[in-house]
């Protein structure tokens, strides 16, 4: 069970449908592994439902109901009987070519012990989404960003100033949260990241990596 969760406002934007697609993908990955946050999102949807029930209605155009009823005749499909499959698919397995329906680019080496792959999210103007795979013991150079960085650990673990982040944990960082993660344990750590703004590395290695990590 995860111990680090997205901020309330991030989950609220997700539940409202106003969060950009890239960060929504990271939140969805966290939700798949976190019952607490799933329940919070369901509660927000319930709150949305209650507000919908209480809103002052605005009359539909004359004949709107009749128009929609006439369209139903074209809806030939019977309602799907197998509506709810109870199958549990893990969000991430090593051989997967997609993540929750999104296509993944090839792994590319960006530095010794660090690989990167693009997650193809079509919406423009949102966050850049990618996966990072880091070798055990790797110390990612200290960095901060001009925008926000939302990370969900898919496997393995890292430690930084905010604590230890293992599979399912989410790091919802603002631009002023500079950090320098270290991969913990003897397993590779795979993270899903949605980043807005620029990624700024500090230190010599960071400056050397900067051209590669500019995604």
């Amino acid at each position, binding site marked *: 069970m995860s111990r680090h969760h997205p901020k*309330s406002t991030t989950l609220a934007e997700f539940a409202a449908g106003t969060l950009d697609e890239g960060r*929504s993908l990271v939140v969805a990955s966290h939700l798949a592994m976190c019952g607490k946050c799933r329940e919070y999102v369901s509660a927000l949807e*319930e709150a949305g*439902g209650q507000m919908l029930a209480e809103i002052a209605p*605005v009359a*539909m155009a004359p004949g709107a109901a009749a128009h*929609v009823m006439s369209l139903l005749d074209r809806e030939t499909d019977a309602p799907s009987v197998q509506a709810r499959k109870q199958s549990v698919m893990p969000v991430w397995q090593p051989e997967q070519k997609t993540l929750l329906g999104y296509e993944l680019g090839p792994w590319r080496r960006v530095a010794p012990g660090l690989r990167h792959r693009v997650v193809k999210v079509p919406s423009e103007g949102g966050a850049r989404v990618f996966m990072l795979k880091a070798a055990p013991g790797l110390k990612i150079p200290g960095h901060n960003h001009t925008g926000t960085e939302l990370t969900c650990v898919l496997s393995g673990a890292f430690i930084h100033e905010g604590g230890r982040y293992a599979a399912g944990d989410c790091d919802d960082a603002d631009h002023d949260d500079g950090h320098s993660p270290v991969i913990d344990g003897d397993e590779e750590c795979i993270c899903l990241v949605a980043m807005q703004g620029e990624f700024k590395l500090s230190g010599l290695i960071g400056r050397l990596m900067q051209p590669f990590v500019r995604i």
Partner: protein
Amino acid sequence: MPTAAYTITCSADLARLIEAVAAERDREAFTALFDYFAPRIKAVLMRSNTSPAAAEELAQDAMLTVWRKAAQFDRTRASASAWIFTIARHLRIDVARREQRSKVLDLESTEFLEPPPQPDEELDAGEREQRVRAALSHLTDDQIKIVRRSFFEGKAHGDIARELELPLGTVKSRIRLAMNRLRDLLGELT
């Protein structure tokens, strides 16, 4: 006048109507749902900067989606209004992303995310309905105002700031405080 079977007095009545649409393709039930929800969906869309014409069309689309997806409704997992809220949300996202279907929040792919049952953390829909009602009643009027605009109506922070004549920074911190308060209340009211 609607007959008793199609009268809406509580949340369970709405759930029964959706179930009738799912099981029997009941058009009278669908009409009752349309009359109740379409003008409300139109209203919330108009409040989030959608033109009346577009809001009208989206509300109709939402109701067609209700007809198509009625079989996916499960009253033990969500109340009828919460379910319809998510349908309206998907349509709003589709429009915002210029018709690109969002895979993450799409009704089809959420099945993919079907979680393992965790009874300790996830509530029965009826229980959740009570808890959410209680939590909302504990928010101050100002907090409700902020939650309604930012979360329910999905307004941009800048628009809220203009509407409430508050500085942007104040709006952002009020949203954060209100959402944190709501999350705490939902946690406390067990």
